[in-house]
């Protein structure tokens, strides 16, 4: 690994944001405001809920935060569902692309986006797969998946067939990652079960009909596509080793180098079957080590409902930990990376169990919402069974979302003190975090099944300091996906990876956010690129968006919008 040390660079921030008042207690006064109406986002998810209870109706609803027009502001794609019984609804269930107007509002640019209606949509992920500087999109669905190449002119072209990444079975979450560090991002697609409308099963809930448990169907194998670097992909699912276990009911996926060997590993959350941890052995080969590592099952040796997942270093030891959302009474599960390829289930000792027991979780993200340098957890909840009240009185279809604050490895739900944003009760699915207004704190977008989404603006998180880092690869893939960032600040080393796809059916801001609490200067930023190159930047002022290019270091910076 070559180290390319950059000489001291001082980026002079504007006076207004250079020194943030540090008298505010960590996290105090942070609120999430529901700005959905103000944002002018009028999207409403169509799930086609029907008496026949087609399973995709209750599972759909993805959201991706990405800058499709490269103007430095996050745009939003909402993935729509459709209908299995009403062709008009099905035809009208358009995915919606919203461009950020930079003033708190968004414009619906779907009409010119080139993104068409096709089948029943599930989720999406985004990356610049052809390294042309513009992020592309992969949209999954219950009966199709499509790759849209960004033309760079504000629109997308469907290149599914030519790229060779189509799928006609039920795809759920997807993620891009460079499995062989060749500079081209590859694509992992989870697939769920072999449901088809003509094989829709009748599942009773006492005397009523309800959505079926996924085990009423058979799991379908996931897909791993290797990027050939020429606009096409090769399906290497079998030869890569990701099919060595019986098919799980794949719902969530995230890339992450959990053993710090420089190769991207993959964690897959499976619904009611063991989760997968694919250890990258290099050369495009993986070994499934979930059981060995202790991350396949719940604490009691039983498979859990595994919906959404994320990887993040919550305890600051430089090792990526894993979080998975599950069903009510299963608890969502937190696995702490012990090193040497082993994980400890710290769900109970960390407080996560108590906070999550009554919820059915879907989308999730590690996020430092209060900029105190610790990774907290945002979780979107909502039951699967829309008539659950017929069978139980201890839960509801619509549920509160959670924000678990991390206090030195102990988590507690602070949703009740975060204002209206976390008082919303809906049946939520995807959750994506990103700095929508570029003001230095992380906002949240929640996709709700059969309803409008919630755009939650973080107010007050930026009373503490932070950095937002955009990576541009040169030898590595263009987005720098898979790059490992280490920020030394205030005696701590914050470890964050560039991820393209995580949670459930969605994707967060590709830029890496690093809270700095009261620190106004970080001593050092180290970027370990997938290519093996290392860039180092020293003495970085807080409260700015930095662009770092592989081999060059910081090539641009702009202060947060305040």
């Amino acid at each position, binding site marked *: 690994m070559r180290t390319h040390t950059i000489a001291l660079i001082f980026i002079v921030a504007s006076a207004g944001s250079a020194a943030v008042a540090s008298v505010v207690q960590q996290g105090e006064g942070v609120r999430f405001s529901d700005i959905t109406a103000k944002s002018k986002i009028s999207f409403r998810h169509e799930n086609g809920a029907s008496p026949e209870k087609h399973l995709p109706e209750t599972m759909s609803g993805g959201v991706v935060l990405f800058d499709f027009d490269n103007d430095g502001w996050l745009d939003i794609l909402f993935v729509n569902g459709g209908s299995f019984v009403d062709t008009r609804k099905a035809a009208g269930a358009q995915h919606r692309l919203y461009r950020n107007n930079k003033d708190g509002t968004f414009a619906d640019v779907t009409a010119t986006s080139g993104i068409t209606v096709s089948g029943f949509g599930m989720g999406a992920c985004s990356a610049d797969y052809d390294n042309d500087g513009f992020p592309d999109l992969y949209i999954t669905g219950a009966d199709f998946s499509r790759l849209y190449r960004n033309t760079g002119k504000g629109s997308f072209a469907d290149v599914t067939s030519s790229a060779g990444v189509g799928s006609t079975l039920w795809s759920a979450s997807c993620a891009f990652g460079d499995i062989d560090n060749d500079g081209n991002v590859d694509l992992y697609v989870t697939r769920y079960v072999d449901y088809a409308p003509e094989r829709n099963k009748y599942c009773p809930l*006492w005397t009523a009909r309800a959505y079926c448990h996924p085990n*009423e169907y058979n799991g379908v194998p996931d897909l791993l596509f290797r990027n050939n670097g020429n606009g096409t992909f090769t399906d290497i699912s079998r030869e890569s080793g990701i099919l060595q276990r019986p098919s799980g009911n794949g719902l969530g996926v995230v890339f992450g180098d959990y053993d710090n060997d420089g190769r991207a590993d993959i964690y897959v959350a499976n619904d009611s079957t063991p989760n997968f941890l694919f250890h990258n052995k290099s050369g495009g080969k993986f070994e499934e080590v979930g059981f*060995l590592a202790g991350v396949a099952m719940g604490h009691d040796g*039983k498979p859990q409902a595994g919906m959404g997942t994320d990887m993040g270093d919550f305890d600051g030891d430089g090792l990526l930990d894993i979080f998975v959302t599950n069903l009510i009474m299963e608890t969502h599960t937190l696995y702490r990376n012990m090193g040497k390829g*082993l994980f400890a289930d710290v769900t*109970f*000792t960390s407080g996560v169990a108590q906070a999550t027991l009554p919820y059915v979780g879907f989308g999730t993200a590690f996020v430092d919402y209060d900029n105190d340098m610790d990774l907290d957890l945002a979780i979107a909840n909502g039951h699967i069974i829309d008539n659950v009240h017929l069978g*139980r009185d201890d839960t509801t279809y619509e549920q509160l979302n959670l924000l678990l604050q991390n206090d030195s490895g102990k988590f507690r739900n602070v949703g009740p003190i975060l204002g209206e944003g976390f008082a919303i009760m809906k049946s939520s699915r995807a959750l994506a975090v990103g700095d929508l207004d570029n003001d230095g704190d992380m906002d949240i977008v929640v996709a709700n099944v059969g309803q409008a989404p919630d755009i939650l603006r973080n107010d007050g998180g930026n009373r503490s300091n932070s950095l937002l880092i955009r990576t541009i690869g040169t030898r590595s893939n263009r987005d720098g996906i898979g790059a490992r960032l280490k920020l030394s600040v205030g005696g701590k080393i914050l470890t964050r990876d560039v991820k393209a796809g995580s949670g459930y059916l969605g994707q967060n801001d590709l830029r890496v956010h690093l809270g700095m609490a009261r620190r106004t200067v970080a001593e050092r930023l180290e970027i370990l690129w997938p290519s093996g190159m290392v860039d180092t930047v020293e003495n970085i002022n807080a409260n700015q968006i930095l662009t770092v290019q592989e081999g060059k270091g910081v090539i641009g910076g702009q202060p947060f919008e305040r």
Partner: protein
Amino acid sequence: MNRVVLWIAALFALACFVSGVPQTDRRAANLIVVSTQPDATEIRNRVRLGQSFELLAMRQSIGPSADDGGYFITARAGDVRQELENALARLKPGEVSPVEKLGRMFFLLRRSTPDEDRWRSQYYAGQKALEEWRYSEAVQLFSNAAMDAGKFKGEDQRVALSLQGLSRSYFLQGDYQRAEPVARESLSLFEKLLGSGHPGILASLENLAAIEQGGAEFATAAQHYRKILSTRWREPSGSSDSDILDLLEKLSAVLTNAYFRDSIFQNAFREFDEALALTPLREDLYAGIAQGLFRVELVAEAESVMHRGIQRFPRSREIRYALAKIYVQASKYEAALGAFETAAGMDGPADPAVNRQQRGVIQERIASMNLLLVRFDAAAAAYKTAIELSPDNLKARLGLADLYFRRGMMKEALDAYMSANLSHPNNAAAYRGLAETFLHLERFSESVSAAQKAIALEPDERASHYILSLALLRDGHNEQGQMALHDYEKLEAQSQADQKHQRTLLELDRNAAMKLVGGQGEEGIALWRKALSSGPTATLETRFLMNLGVAQAKLGRHRDAAETFQTMIDLGINDFLIHRNLAVEYQILGDSRYLQHRASYLQKYDAALKVILN
């Protein structure tokens, strides 16, 4: 919570049987227990006027062994409560004690005479001989007992008891000709002594009915089984024999047709519900009926029955508790919590020890509901109360330990699991809890040891294997860890395969029912046959055969239906509903076997209700 069982547990520390106790230490007596002093005084006066103490016990006592005249034996100090001990010590053979207090109740004792003891010896010896298949000897012993009993003054149920034993001995020898008249005589005596509607005659009725059934006198056997059902389950102050029989018959129709939810079911349920509204039931029968309905997934209906029970017995702790259990089974934990809490606040049995134990059980249930509802503080308080009330309550101890674990209080969890382990050293769940807690505390070798003990006690429990493998791997024993992981994965894979197979079969069952209801009966029948040929478990086989038989009957294929139900009986599946359905089919076909199965249906209905309530 069987009241009689609890009474026996409370009053008798140790049961002493005749054969094992030296004659000199042994004292036999009869006990009558009643709720009020005036009742006790009145009974004592009747005894003084020459009425049989044992007969009065059979008629009026609510104490243990009332059916047996309140008879008990004590050999050493501590066998019985001190109050009884003291009273007995003051009595000579044949004497009756004054009325004395026992908790909130009142009792009378009568010490047995040597003649009475001798009769008892013979009678028990006869029973033992029956149990050990020494029928000829039993005949002799009961004959002698009958002669001895005939010497007691006045009308005495011991003659009837002796004759009952004798008839049973003849019956088991296969000598129905001798058995039946003796049984009739015994029953006649009981009816004279107790009255024809008294529960004390039930054993005699059962005896006679069994003999008649054995001798192929099915019509009369059925009559007697009807009598048994109505006598045992009728609410004495409310319903008539015909009311309760009619209700039970309508319940059978509901249970038979519940799975299909068709118009026949709707009518059957309507009729049952109307009858239920008009028929007061015995307190415990509400719970029995509700359980029966719940088992066929008539959840709302089961709740409704319990609410009727509450209206009839608003102060009954047992009914509240039974309702709470229905709520738990229906995953209605809030409602269950409310019902348990209400039960906790109600008066329980008069005996303080029994009451305390009951309260302990209820507190444990309250705690477990609070745990499910994530109200950890309330759960902790209730578990601690449960343990205080009943230190032997393993569920409460394990529940508290589990609660600590879920709260991440690992040291407390460890202490609690160790405490459970100490009080119940051979409990796999306690070892498993210890193993998991040690794992979380990163005390891997101790985790391994505890997991191994759990596996030794429950070899197929997957969680223990899982914990063992994780602990071994983290303790650096890679090879052993991999082997343990392999064992776990095998069990897990087998479990998944079994569950998948079960789901597939249940889907066939559901689809078959939908076909039938949708007018595609033959296709439904074909699906059931497919399900039956796919290797179902015994439980599923019973369900599929039952559904197949009922479907065939609905399609008018009575011969096929009869064959299906007969197959079930030939396979040893002897549920009362099967006999009922078979009787119906045979009757339609004009086959005289319907009488036999009608009798069996009634006999097994009674047995089934007893099982549910116990």
